[in-house]
């Protein structure tokens, strides 16, 4: 590969947006740099000391000037702020039709798992033109998922799910870096993102997956860990029914409600006492230390598979604290 490069490739829908803001900032920066450097050089030569006794006439202050050179830069910075914030806002809101992929960072590798069950290490295959949403967890320290060609970066903080998303626009092979210092082999925690034509991606997907989809793996775990002893499909168990739960609002003991998303599932498995569903006893034991982050995402994906998928069910219709019972066949009043 070439040893010299000046500008990174653009390979996502976000990349040109970020670069356009960069061009604006560069234009402003070059203008002011030239202005200041030019003025200094001009004044330095024009007003160089010609005799030891000369005494310049002093002007102490010019209020018009002071106001001008405060207000104009302020106006420019507000353009920068608004422009930058709008890009950030877009980058923070994954579209509903995004493909869901899970990433787990650990010293010093990236493990990725597709919903269909393909697992990869330090490699990520994605299709062109479809939004991809990454739900990311860390097994140990803070990592950061960084793909320069996509102009996107998100820290992966232990103890929570972090998300990022991108839509690739150009087939190819792009660097994946860990951008948050994570210990001895931090600079070895790198990989490649392969952006493929949709057909190639489908072929690739159907090639692997020896252990079944993530939901299937999650189902096995669900049974191994005896979750199904309490979380039954009907309302006969000691725990809430999980069928049709994903995306709903869950009413809690002590008032209030929470949206049943990935982060809520994760928390409920690791810290079951944190939020108690209304109508149930706090009897669930913690699974902290018993399941890895990779197993957690499989469990989460399994629970999600029991409910309506994003975009197909009433996902964002979470106004009512009580889940509707009509949306899914298995849904019963007991899951409130």
């Amino acid at each position, binding site marked *: *590969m070439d*040893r*010299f490069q000046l500008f*990174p490739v653009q390979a996502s829908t976000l990349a040109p*947006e*970020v670069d356009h*803001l*960069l061009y604006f*900032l560069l234009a*402003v*920066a070059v203008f*002011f740099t030239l202005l*200041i450097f030019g*003025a*200094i050089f001009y*004044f*330095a030569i024009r*007003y160089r*000391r010609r005799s030891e*006794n*000369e*005494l*310049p006439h002093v*002007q102490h*202050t010019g209020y018009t*000037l*002071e106001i001008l*050179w*405060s207000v104009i830069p*302020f106006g420019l*910075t507000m353009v*920068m702020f608004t422009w*930058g*914030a*709008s*890009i*950030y806002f877009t*980058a923070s809101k994954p579209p509903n039709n995004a493909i869901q992929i899970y990433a787990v960072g650990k010293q010093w590798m990236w493990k990725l798992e597709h919903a269909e069950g393909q697992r990869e290490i330090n490699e990520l295959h994605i299709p062109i033109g479809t939004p991809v949403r990454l739900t990311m967890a860390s097994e*140990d*320290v*803070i990592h950061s998922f*960084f793909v320069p060609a996509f*102009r996107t*970066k998100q*820290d992966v*903080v*232990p*103890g929570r799910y*972090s998300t990022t998303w991108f839509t690739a626009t150009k087939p190819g092979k792009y*660097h994946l*870096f*860990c951008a*948050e*210092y994570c*210990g*001895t*082999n*931090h*600079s070895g925690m790198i990989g490649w993102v392969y952006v493929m034509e949709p057909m190639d991606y489908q072929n690739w997907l159907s090639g692997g997956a020896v252990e079944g989809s993530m939901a299937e793996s999650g189902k096995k775990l669900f049974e191994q860990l005896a979750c199904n002893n309490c979380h039954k499909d009907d309302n006969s168990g000691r725990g809430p029914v999980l069928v049709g739960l994903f995306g709903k609002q869950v009413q809690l003991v002590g008032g209030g409600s929470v949206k049943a998303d990935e982060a809520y599932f994760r928390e409920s498995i*690791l810290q079951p006492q944190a939020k108690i569903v209304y109508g149930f006893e706090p009897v669930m034991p913690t699974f902290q230390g018993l399941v890895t982050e990779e197993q957690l995402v499989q469990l989460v994906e399994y629970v999600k598979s029991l409910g309506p998928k994003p975009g197909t069910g009433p996902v964002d219709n979470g106004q009512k604290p009580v889940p509707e019972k009509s949306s899914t066949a298995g849904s019963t009043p007991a899951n409130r």
Partner: protein
Amino acid sequence: MITAAAQERENYLNASHGLKSWFLTKDHKRIGLLYLATITLFFFIGGAFATLIRVELLTPQGNLVSSETYNKLFTMHGVMMIFFFLIPSIPAVLGNFFLPIMIGARDLAFPKLNLLSWYLLVVGGMFSLYAMLAGGVDTGWTFYTPYSTTYSNGYVIATALGIFIAGFSSILTGLNFIVTIHRMRAPGMTWFRMPLFVWAHYATSLIQVLGTPVLAVTIVLLFLERVFHLGIFDPARGGDPVLFQHLFWFYSHPAVYIMVLPAMGVVSEVISTFSRKAIFGYGFVAFSSVSIAVLGFLVWGHHLFVSGQSLFAGMVFSFLSYFVAIPSAIKVFNWTATLYKGSISFQTPMLYALGFIGLFTMGGLTGLFVAALGIDMHVTDTYFVVAHFHYIMVGGAIMGYMSGLHYWWPKMTGRMYPEAWARLSALVIFLGFNLTFFPQFILGYLGMPRRYHLYPPEFQVLNVLSTAGASVLAVGYLMPMIYFIWSLRYGKVAPVNPWGATGLEWKTSSPPPVHNFDETPVVTHDAYDYASLMAEEVEVG
């Protein structure tokens, strides 16, 4: 004849002799020199680590040191340079020496506390240095949890303890300056007659006194977490690793202004002196220092745009960060306007000061890039950020420090440095600096993450350029080291006021007497009143 008289005169250097007269001194001027020797040592140690880093990065593979050693090197470089060189640099050396003289005081308000501050820095610095060399620390100077609390095997606590101790040095120095400025100004030295160097130190001291205790608390929490597993930063126990980042940057962002505000103070003095003109917009420059100090406390969250803080917090911190840009811009414009219709001469302090304006402008403008949320997502934790903060801290703070050191060297030592060599050093440092750090902006936008021991081969050419620049820069920094020492013996004897400057420090002898002035000065003019200075000279002449 005059020079011979000046040499024989009793001054703070020849008034007493022996080690005890130095190590137990309460004279702010001698303590300033003790600081100078100490931080020069720390600077060259920190510089040696930087040299090893740059040599290692000549090639994409790691062929000089292991990854473990590399991580320790950038940690030690950051810790030494930030906590033990940059933060004390201008305040503890030049501020200590000149702040009392510039307001017509005999010493700082608390001379014993001042000596204690120096001992705290020495003890803290030696402690951290020993911990890092003996056991090593690989957390980076930022000590992010949970790596620092749970996973790192290094001497994290010992290193942090050194920083904790040195923090008290910083707090006490700030306290001393604030009280001195409030209580010990000479008759006639009103607030708005104070030199801008003093205003800058007042603003800096506020940050030191208000910000550093937060760092101390953060280090204590780090200790409790690492040793007793308290759970403050551990999500498995209900803690949050990101909380550490909030606490850390609450101090460490304002700390950037501890480094750069005093440099701005130096530049204001030097630009005025070598243009023979009052600084344009004195009040705006003075208040911009104070507003930078205040606003600096409200922007820490811009270090956390991709750390998982809320979308709303990201927007608020980006918005507020742009507010700091305005007082900084006001300063740059006012310095430039001061040159207009001035009488400009190009002695070394002026060359360094003009270099400061250029490099600080570039550092400040690239600050606008990293404050923009959409750009920061891409460039944070890359070499873009590394380049940006070196432009502020090295291009800004160190250029300002060098400018001040040359400007006041004749007053401090009674000797002139060799002008030609010094001008050359300013040029070499300016060019070497740009060659080192400009390529890093490009590297960062290309996506090279910081703290990478190994890197993809397409980044090599820019890294080689950067290393080449670093060698030029190293030569540039060694030159003043040599000619300053040389000048102590062979330099021309300095007159009272070699630059035709207006401050009170230029009205007392070079070097000053033990109590700074033979009689307490009475101030009758604004700062930078060159007309009355030259009228006096005519009368005397």
